[in-house]
């Protein structure tokens, strides 16, 4: 699952904007496949962002977040900060990404 999170972080002055794209189907549990069977819920439940090892953001998501989720947030920081993102879905799979602030 190494490449499932794509991230970019850019500093403008002391404001850092982090953008992330996660590859995940985010199945709602309400859609049906072509045989009419319900596709079970399969979605990212929690997202944690750490900056230089300190938790900055803790998010909880529902099935209503779109497929291949996009997330952006801003914090007060600087170039060179190490940003790490960890997503955990309802099957317990973990998706991680990291980047340095440019």
């Amino acid at each position, binding site marked *: 699952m190494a490449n499932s999170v794509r991230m970019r972080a850019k500093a403008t002055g002391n404001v850092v904007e982090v953008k992330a794209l996660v590859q995940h189907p985010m199945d*709602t549990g309400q859609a049906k496949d072509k045989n009419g069977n319900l596709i079970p819920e399969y979605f990212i439940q929690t997202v944690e962002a750490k900056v230089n090892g300190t938790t*900055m953001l803790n998010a*909880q998501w529902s099935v209503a977040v779109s497929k291949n989720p996009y*997330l952006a*947030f801003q914090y007060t920081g600087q170039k060179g900060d190490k940003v790490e993102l960890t997503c955990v879905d309802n099957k*317990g799979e973990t998706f991680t990404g990291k980047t340095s602030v440019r």
Partner: protein
Amino acid sequence: MNRRSFLHNVFRTGTLASLAVAGLALPKQLLAAWNQKAFKSKQYTDAISELYGSSSMEESDNIILKAPDIAENGAVVPVTVESELPNIESISILVEANPSPLAAEFNFGAGMRGYASTRLKMGKTSNVHAVVKADGKLYQATKEVKVTIGGCGG
């Protein structure tokens, strides 16, 4: 401990151990963080109560909720929440007409700016609510998004 519960525990630990081996064991604090009750609430005010312990909110001009007036594709509706309110602890986004209105909650640590952006699914035309918890109080902004094609069908 009686025999029954002893066996039960052995079985349970055994199962957990094999799950761990299969790589399915979850970091406990992350698992506990997902608020099942709030996310399964059918009314958006109930979801807010489950999440924050109260649903009394003030309308605030200091929350900018950016979302399209008309979303052609309900499966991907970009939503951005921005606020200059001091001491923001959390931002939530709720889609009133979705089967489970609470879509996402963002808990902020120190140093975060009042900004969160994501993309959501919307089943049909609905009010979208941005709820911001700042200084222990709840504020909200609301915007109606018209959906041409729903995002929850197969």
